[in-house]
């Protein structure tokens, strides 16, 4: 069976058939989900955002091997950039195709700001510094309401503009060819397009000159340097690119939710994204996607099953789904590292590296 699948994947014609089938399934997906409930389309949209985030973090952690525990800060920077430039807060209403690149650029600058002083640090130190950086950004988002109100403090920014192209508004339902496209469904297609682009970029990056340089640094920085790789620039590039992906995802999050507050950019979220990367398999684009899907949908499924089951058995809610989710999540991190350190779908080199004892 497995052999047959492998054979058919190698066959170019079969490959195209597969791609067309997957594309058809992804196109039909939101309408199927909408039958179950619009909530599931929203959940899917958030899952895609998390895939985008994990792919961004995968560049830093998976490709370049730099453990970043403050990644959500870039997401936050992107989200706030969008919120500030497209909301009544400052009365600015720029179109999204201008703000998203600005958000990516601002996040990129933050990435370089974080990367530059930490270039010399070794793995675990880097992790702690990035964690501290994430906290600093959150504290600033929380407090930058004085003396000039920039972030509106803990209350966050509301009434953020949705995406809009001419008269086409992404938050309203519109009818095209007899089908009702609700707001979440439109965002789904937009996110899907962005996701496909990002996946292609990531796959191309992996085998590019830069991608190979990142992996060389991950494997052995000294050797990479000796081979003529400018480790400083290449590492900075990893931080900058990872951060820009985070910034773009943040901008889309902002537009979709219509509301941002520092609450969404806490340490747990950084760890969550890291867990997605680790669970799926650091350095492997498909693995990371699977990890992000599992950790985005898993908790939602828990939410809909755990509470009813507890009511059925005990007649009351003993443990909140949220707690169970976090417990499983912590347990998953520990068990993954103990029994399958390279992830569910490991990249070949990464696997060799993590299972080898140094």
């Amino acid at each position: 069976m497995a052999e047959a699948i492998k054979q058919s994947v190698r066959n170019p014609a079969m490959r195209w058939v597969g791609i067309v089938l997957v594309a058809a399934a992804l196109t039909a997906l939101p309408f199927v989900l909408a039958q179950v409930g619009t909530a599931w389309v929203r959940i899917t949209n958030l899952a895609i955002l998390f895939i985008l985030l994990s792919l961004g973090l995968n560049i830093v952690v998976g490709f370049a091997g730099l453990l970043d525990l403050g990644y959500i800060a870039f997401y936050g920077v992107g989200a706030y950039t969008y919120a500030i430039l497209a909301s009544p807060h400052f009365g600015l209403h720029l179109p999204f195709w201008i703000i998203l690149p600005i958000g990516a650029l601002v996040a990129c600058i933050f990435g370089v700001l974080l990367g530059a002083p930490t270039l010399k640090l070794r793995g675990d130190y880097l992790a702690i510094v990035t964690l501290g950086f994430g906290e600093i950004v959150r504290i600033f988002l929380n407090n930058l309401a004085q003396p000039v109100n920039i972030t509106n403090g803990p209350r966050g920014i509301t009434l953020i503009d949705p995406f809009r192209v001419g008269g086409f508004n992404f938050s309203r339902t519109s009818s095209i060819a007899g089908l009702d496209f609700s707001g979440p469904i439109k965002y789904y297609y937009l996110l899907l397009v962005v996701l496909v682009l990002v996946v292609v970029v990531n796959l191309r990056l992996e085998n590019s000159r830069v991608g190979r340089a990142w992996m060389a640094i991950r494997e052995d920085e000294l050797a990479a340097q000796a081979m003529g790789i400018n480790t400083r620039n290449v590492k900075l590039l990893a931080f900058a690119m990872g951060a820009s992906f985070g910034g773009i995802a943040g901008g889309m999050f902002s537009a979709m939710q219509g509301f941002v507050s520092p609450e969404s950019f806490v340490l747990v979220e950084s760890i969550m994204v890291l867990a997605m990367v680790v669970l799926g398999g650091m350095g492997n684009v498909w693995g990371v996607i699977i990890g992000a899907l599992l950790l985005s949908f898993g908790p939602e499924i828990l939410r809909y099953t755990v509470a009813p089951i507890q009511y059925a058995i005990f007649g009351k809610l003993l443990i909140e789904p949220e707690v169970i989710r976090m417990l499983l999540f912590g347990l998953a991190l520990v068990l993954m590292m103990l029994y399958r350190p390279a992830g569910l779908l490991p990249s070949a080199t990464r696997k060799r590296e993590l299972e080898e004892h140094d």
Partner: protein
Amino acid sequence: MDIFLQQIINGLTLGSVYAVVALGYTMVYGIVQLINFAHGEVVMVGAMVGLSVIGALAASSGLPPLVVVLAGAMSAVPVCMAVGYTMERVAYRPLRGAPRLAPLITAIGISIILQQVAMLVWSRNPLSFPQIVANPVFEVAGAHVSAVQIAIVSVSVLMMAVLTLIVYRTRLGVAMRATSENAQMAGLMGVNVNQVIAATFVIGAALAAIAGVMIGTYYGIAHYKMGALLGMKAFAAAVLGGIGNLAGAMLGGILLGVVEALGTGYIGELTDLCHIDWISTSLAQRCAEDGHVVVFGSNYQDVFAFVVLILVLVFRPSGLLGERVGDRA
């Protein structure tokens, strides 16, 4: 009241707690070159256990207050030791020799689990410290010093002294130093390396337990989320002093406490735009109305530790007293 002296006193109090927690980080790092990311959560468990026992005893038994507090601390210590031991056995020992990222990620997992379990046991509401101990406040040169502050500093100093004795004057201490020097060699010399590493974790956890009770007593409150930030600050203190170095952790902790207190005390005044109100007339107008236009207020208190951490790692990665030169890849 003299703000400067007052902030130094507050800083010394918090700093000595940071120092005790930092010792846990530094001991573990010195011996297995690993950042015990979950150490802050052990402090939290200590605070929660200690405050629950103190609360229960204060309500029911007629014991004298000091005995109640002591009983709280004494019950927190074994619980934390057990947590520390389990942590080492489950999450760190199997990964010894694995790449550094692996134990760091398990540590994150462990701290999430500890937090959630604490939330299940004690609920989301914070525990408060019952008002049983009279806390007389003394006035020294225009600043206030409370009995609790004096007690915290004294207990911290005592614990640092005991730890120094253990490390430099006992067989276990010799074994610990040998293991940190070269674990393989120490093993060949008959040191049970696994036992020594476990002992290091357990001692660190005991210190964390006492620190937890102290911080709970000082703030009068403990909650399931308190561990992460405290742990981060203590880690910053350990790095500031030079990680792996006991005296460094003590110095780093106290220094960080003082920096934080002074920073919090003065940042508002230092970043008050009214010092430069000649820049614009609208600013001058606001200054005339409010008196102060502060850019960074004391709500930035938690930033100092991270800034110190980053500065130290950039300019002197070996810390103030560290012997290890550079922590390059």
